[in-house]
Every structure is written in C-alpha cells, then in structure tokens.
C-alpha cells in the first residue's frame, strides 16, 4: 500500500522552518533542518486549535528531541513521533519523508 510520493524540490523547503504539502487528501507539514540534512513530516492539523497550521510553527529541539511549537496556543509536538510534549495523551500522525537528489518525497504509510 505505502508508497513514496514526489512532493516538491528541496529549494521549496524553508531552512529551519516548515511548509505544508498536499499529499493525496492529507495536509502534511514538512520541516527542514539543513545542518543535519534532516526532514520531518507530520500532519498539519493542530489538535488544540483545530486548524491546519502546524507547518507555520517555530521549530527547534527540547532535550535533543526535534519539535515544532504550534503558533496558536504554543503546544510542542515531537517532529519524530508527532506526540505532544506538553500532553502526551495527544498525538498527531507522523509520516515518512526523504530527500532523493533534489526532490522531497513523502510516504503516508511509513513512519
């Protein structure tokens, strides 16, 4: 079932920040940390404010765990697992994402 979908070029990503991609019907927030050549993908929907906005959050790390802070009410989510670091009962989906050459690919089935 799961397959890699071509989304955009690496140049479309914003270093140290996020963009939102439409993959099939799903809004995927993609974050880019160029110093580690790392990309992360989680669902764009913020379960606290109930709007599609996580791609616009500030990113960084807490104790080494990469995270994004929701721009609306500031909850932090792990970029690896999608788990909310302020309330571990809340989680957003996380997805597979990789850089192939100068292209960015997302896999909704992989984690």
């Amino acid at each position, binding site marked *: 079932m799961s397959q890699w979908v071509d*989304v*955009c070029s690496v140049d*479309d*990503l*914003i*270093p*140290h*920040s996020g*963009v*939102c*991609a*439409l993959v099939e019907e799903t*809004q995927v927030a*993609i974050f880019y*940390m160029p110093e580690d050549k790392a990309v992360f993908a989680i669902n764009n*929907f913020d379960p606290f*404010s*109930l*709007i*599609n*906005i996580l791609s*616009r*959050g*500030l*990113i*960084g*790390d*807490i*104790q*080494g765990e*990469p*995270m994004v*802070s929701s*721009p*609306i009410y*500031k909850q*932090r989510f792990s970029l690896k697992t999608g788990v909310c670091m302020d309330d571990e*009962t809340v989680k957003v989906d996380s997805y597979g994402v990789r850089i192939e050459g100068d292209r960015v690919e997302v896999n909704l089935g992989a984690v």
Partner: protein
Amino acid sequence: MSNKQTLVVIGNGMVGQNFLVSLMASEIKDNYNVVTFCEEELPAYDRVHLSEYFSGKSADDLSLVEEGFFETNNITIHMGDKASSIDRAAKTVTSEKGVEIAYDKLVLATGSTAFIPPIPGNDREGCIAYRTIDDLDEMMATAKTSKVGAVVGGGLLGLEAAKALRDLNLETHVVQFAPRLMEAQLDDGGALLLKQKIEDLGVGVLTSKNTTQIVDGDTCKHKMVFADGTELETDMILYSAGIRPRYEIADACGLDIADRGGVVINDQCLTSDEDIYAIGECASWNNQTFGLVAPGYAMARTVVDHLAGGQDEFTGADMSTKLKLNGVDVASIGDAHGTTAGSLVYTYQNGVDGVYKRIVVSEDNKYLLGAVLVGDASGYPTLHQYYSNEIELPSNPDSLILPARSDESVGLGPDALPASAQVCSCFDVTKGDICTSIEGGCTTIGALKDDTKAATGCGGCAALVKSVLDCELEKAGFEVNTDICEHFAYTRQDLYNLIMVEEIKTFGELLEKHGSGKGCEICKQAIGSILASYWNDYVLDDDHVSLQDTNDTFLANTQKDGTYSVVPRMTGGEVTPDGLIAVGNVAKKYGLYTKITGGQRVDLFGARVDQLPPIWQELIDAGFESGHAYGKSLRTVKSCVGSTWCRFGVDDSVGLAVELENRYKGLRAPHKIKFAVSGCTRECAEAQSKDIGVIAVEGGWNLYVCGNGGMKPRHGDLFATNLDKETLIKYIDRVLTFYVRTADRLQRTSVWMENMEGGLDYLKSVVIDDKLQINDQLEAHMQHVVDTYQCEWTTTMADENKLKRFRHFVNSDKTDENIIFVEERGQIRPANIEERALALAEEA
C-alpha cells in the same frame, strides 16, 4: 492469592472514588479483591464544578478517574448497575442486574439525592433536579424551549444553577425559602450584598418564598404560587434546595439510621455492623451529615487507616468554603453567625466597592472563630489559617479585614505557619507535607501538585501553596533560574549585550558561540526580536525568517481559524476619504470582515495567506504602508483632534502624533508599544494609559511613561513637564532604547518600570541626568532605526522568492478547505465547530 478478602464499595461518586484512590495508594492495597458498583453510566466525576459543563467542559474533562485506573488496580467496576440489597447474614450484595458478590468488608458511599420539596405539581414536565450530568443534559434540552427559568434554592449549588440558566439566555429567578441567600454560610449583611450582586447580573432573587403549589401558567408553562399570595410565571424549574442522604439500602438491611436521616457511623466510620463502613453524604456522624467533599474525603482516609489497623478518628469537619459565584467572591469560615457564647464581631462594609467582611472572634479577642467575606475574598487564606490552626490574632484583629492604607502588611506570611498547618483541606495536605515534597525535589507548582495533590481539589489554596513554595525555595538558598531557555544560559539582557558587544548579526552565530542545541520557539523569537531591534534588518531575510512567529512571517495577524488580519498604517488616526475608500474597496473585493481598532485604524479580517500579497499590492498602490500590527513593535500613536479643530485644544496633537508615529514606526521591541497624544488636559486620547503618553499644556508638552491598559491597567508616570518638542523626542528616544536594551522578553514597559530598581527616579536619572553616560549611544541607536526604516510589505512585494511562501500548499494552488465562514450582521465570521462540520458534510 486465595487468602485475599473481598471489599465491596457501593457507589462511585466523588467520595467512593477518593476512597479507592486512597486505598490503592496504601500499603494494604494487595489485601483485597475490590469490587465497586456505579449506578450512573459514567464513573466518578467532579460534581463540585458541574456548572463548568455549560462553559464547555465535557463529561471527560469533569471525570475524576484517571485512564486505566480500574484496570491497572484490578478493580472490578459494575457500571450502570445499582446495588439493590445487602444480606448481612450471608454477607452478600446483590445488584439490580442480578450480580451477587460475597463481601468481607463493605463500604457504603451512596451519596445523596437532590431534595425535591413536597409541593403539589413538583413533578410537572420541565421541573428538574440539578444534581447529575444526566440532569444537566435534560436541563439544556428543556432550556431550548423555555424563555423563563426558576431555581428553587438559594444556596451554593442553586446560585450556580441560576448562572447556568442565565448563560443559556433565560430570564432567571432564584426562589429561596429562607430570608437570605446561602443561609448556612452567610449572615444578613453578607447575604444582602450577595443578593444585590446577583441581581446586578440580571438574575431575580426572591427570598422568604414558600412555594405552595405549581400549576399551569398564564404567560409561561408553569406558575409557582407562594404562601404570601404572590406568584411567579416560569417555563422550567430547577430544584437545588439541598440534598438528602441516600440510605434506603442501609435501612432495608437493618443498619442504624439517624433521626434526621443518614447511616449512623462512629469515629472510625463504622456503621452498626462491624464489617460495614459508610462515608460521604450518606453517613451521619454525631447526628450531622456533610454536604461537602472535604469531610467525605476525610472519612475515606479514616476507613483506609482503620482497615490497615490504624487508630485515626474522624473528628468532624471544617465547613469553611471559598468560591467565586457568578464572578462574585464569597467565603465563609467556621462560626460565621457568631453563635459561640461570648463571641465578638468586627464588621467592615464598603458600599462603594461592594465589599462586606465580618469576623467573629473569641471572648478574649485572641482567636478567630468565624468569618464572612463577600465581594473580596482575598483575605480568605490568611483568615482560614488563623482559624484552622488556632493561631493567636494580632492585637488589633480588625486590621485583618480593613483595607491596607499604607505599606504595613497584615497578611500571615507562609513562614509564620507551623508545619502542622493544613494548607489544602480537600486532600489534607499540611505545610509540613509540602516542605517534605520540596526537599524531595519538587520545586515547581506542577511537581508539587502531582506529588502531594495539594491545590488539585477546589483549588482555593493554590496561592498559598505557591507562596509556601517560593518562601521555602528562597530559604533553601535556591537561585531562581533566569536562563531564557535550555539553549542559552543567559537572560534576555545578557543576550542583548552579547549581540551588541560582539556585533553578532544572526541567530546561528549566537547559537554557535554562546548556546547549545537547535533553539526553540522561546529563544528564537527573543533573539529574532533583539536582532531586529538592534540591527533593524528585514525580518524575512533568509537568516531571520525562521526566527519569526507566524504573525511576523506573514506580516499579518493570525486569527483563531488560521486566517490573517491586515492593518494598514494610518498615522495618528488620520485617513483621507480616498484612502478610506481604497481600504473599503479592498475589504469588499476580498470579502473581509471590517472593524475599527482601539488604536484608531481599520482592521480587515479573514484573509487567507495566498490573498495577503494581492491585498497588499492594492493597499500599497493606494499609498498605504504596513501598520506593524503583527509585530512586537510600535503599533499606533492615538490622538485627539487637537487645537486644529477643537475649541478647547491647547496644541496640535494630531500633528505631533503623526510625527512621532513616523519616527518610531517599525521599531521592534520586547513587546508591543502604544503611544497617544492629547491636545489638552481633558485627555481625550487617553495618553496616560499608554507606554508613551504626551499631553499638551500651556507651557509645552507633558510626558508620561510606562502606562498600559490590558490585563493589569497602569497609569503612566509623569516623567517630565513643559517640554519643547525637541527635548520631548530626545527623552522618548532614550526611554525607548533603554527599554529595548534592558527589558525581559515579552515585558511591557509597565512591568519593566515596576521591576526596575529605583523605579521612576532611576529612569529619570538615566534619561534626564545621563547618570550612566549612555544617552549619546541611546540616541544614536534610535537614529539608526529611524534611518533604516522600511515598509516590510513594500520590500516583500518586490521579492519573488519571499512571495513563494504566501500559499497554503507548497505543491498545489488549492486552498485550505477547513477555512469556512458564515455571515453575521452583514459580514463574515469564522464558522464554529458545528457549522464547520455541517458545511464539510454538505460538500461531501
């Protein structure tokens, strides 16, 4: 395994659940197989905060049961099944659904029911008890077809129920049998003030009303007929006239029942059967029943202790209470009515502010016996400590209720409390328990709550817990950590100085030299703001864009639905007719909600990210520039019309406002900055409530600094008088730059001033007397900011690369289908959750 005894708990309400939690936290938890019956379809929930169900809390939010609690602790719970009989000879409990359990020990926690006054017509349709979540659902359904509602009962719960009805937009009346509200807790004076305050909220209060029957209404569905011949028409009736213990099951199996109702218990909470306990509202101790949770919790602890072979005794309960009732502070302590022989009373009444305070003291004037507080219950924690720990009163006890007129402090500092002092009465946490927990490493409020449960019940002791914590930490010599976050072991001021001295221009450089990790939303925003204040570079530069929060990233204000609002600058609140028409045309073309702001300009709401650039192109073409409404930066300079038009005006306030706004626009600061200029001392521009306020007087301009409105309003301090314009601008340059350099992150000028050692005099010595010899620097910095100003929208529109970001999807031109508007008063507004669901369903 097989030698475990079986313990059955009948009832999973607040007290039944508290008993289970206490038992599972005790050493004897493995001695029993525990079985419990819960009559309702939901396990224990917080009945004390039931009315919050109306303000949006869900049944889940009110739940008192941690997820997995029953499973983890191997407790068998029979949900929606009521225990119906006890066979004491066979030692079995049987339920309505036919479950039969043999017990070794039995705990009755059957609680109480709402008291329905025995009046003809009391069971008419729409006459409901106010007790359970099911009742609330029925009440909301009934309210939909009602215009008027009446609550029978003017006690604590009754007034909460009235608030709930009022919130449902019903004309609401409270009908009280007694001559005053909250008759158990308040005296006449306190109750009278409470009545006025409740009436001010639009709720009718009828006291001394004995309802004799309920019949068909003339204008409403029902008519309540009172003994004094008067009547009240209403569409629905809520009963909240007290509670009655539920003891049918105990009565039926022959346990002793008190004359006034309730299962008789002794000091160990044992009933007349030595294997059966009763706790909470169903129990009668010393011929008394208790309708509060704290005594019920105390009984639960007593039973756990007794099961473990301990000697604890239930010794009655402190019925003191503090709450916010419809926004009105009410508190009652101990013997509020002064019924103790020889007791003396002090009363303070302030008709202007609506405050009533009364304390009852012992005959020798040494100990507090009781108190009533209405309108201002801030003194409750101190008074309650004097009462519950029998601390000797100061020689003038009235100082405890009189307003402080000078610097003298009459509060009882946490240091004065003995270790045995009970701080949290819901969970019986003493100051000693809190200190032990702090020594054990719980040095935050959150950790303390988790560890001791203090302040997790009614929350009334939260402030006291915090002050005990602060006091203990200070005594232990803890240095309060002022690091901005885990990535930088510096304060904001330190970071500012590092950037200034080492001429650091990017976040990456600062992180490499002085930080660790990748940063976070706290340090990124703070450092982004400092870099913008100091260098005044374009905030969307590649080096800076990832430091900006979503407002600055999109140069617009994020709203709750993920759309943005747009504010073009209108300096001094001045706008030409053509300008206004252009703004109107843009709003019309893009269908934006339009509102006038408090800062005298126009705000356009509901723009999607992809609409921001075309909107701004049109605004720029019409001569507008960014209003910086999105930034922690100078917002507006508000003005009155001044001497140009006003017959009272002393000077040209609009002219000065335009000049000041043009000078400081774009200045990034730790927080937003607002100015105002008034043309005379009538002060129509409200300059004294602004960070920088200027008022025209005959001799020049008076300058006020560090005022603000907002959550905690503060009048600005008069900084200098009769200034000419040149000096005025110099002073403002210096004050603002000094603020930008030395304030904490997100600190408004008001708080900055209040935390400044030396306060206003110190600031004057820096700015006016140049005490630090930095005024040249401060002015040069401001001149740099003024000289490098740019309209961020004009810059952005000229850069294809930056505009790329203004779309919802990086790989599609579609827009976010979750953004949905509905119409209200002729304009759009964001759809609420139900409307959104409906619209999405229709589309599908």
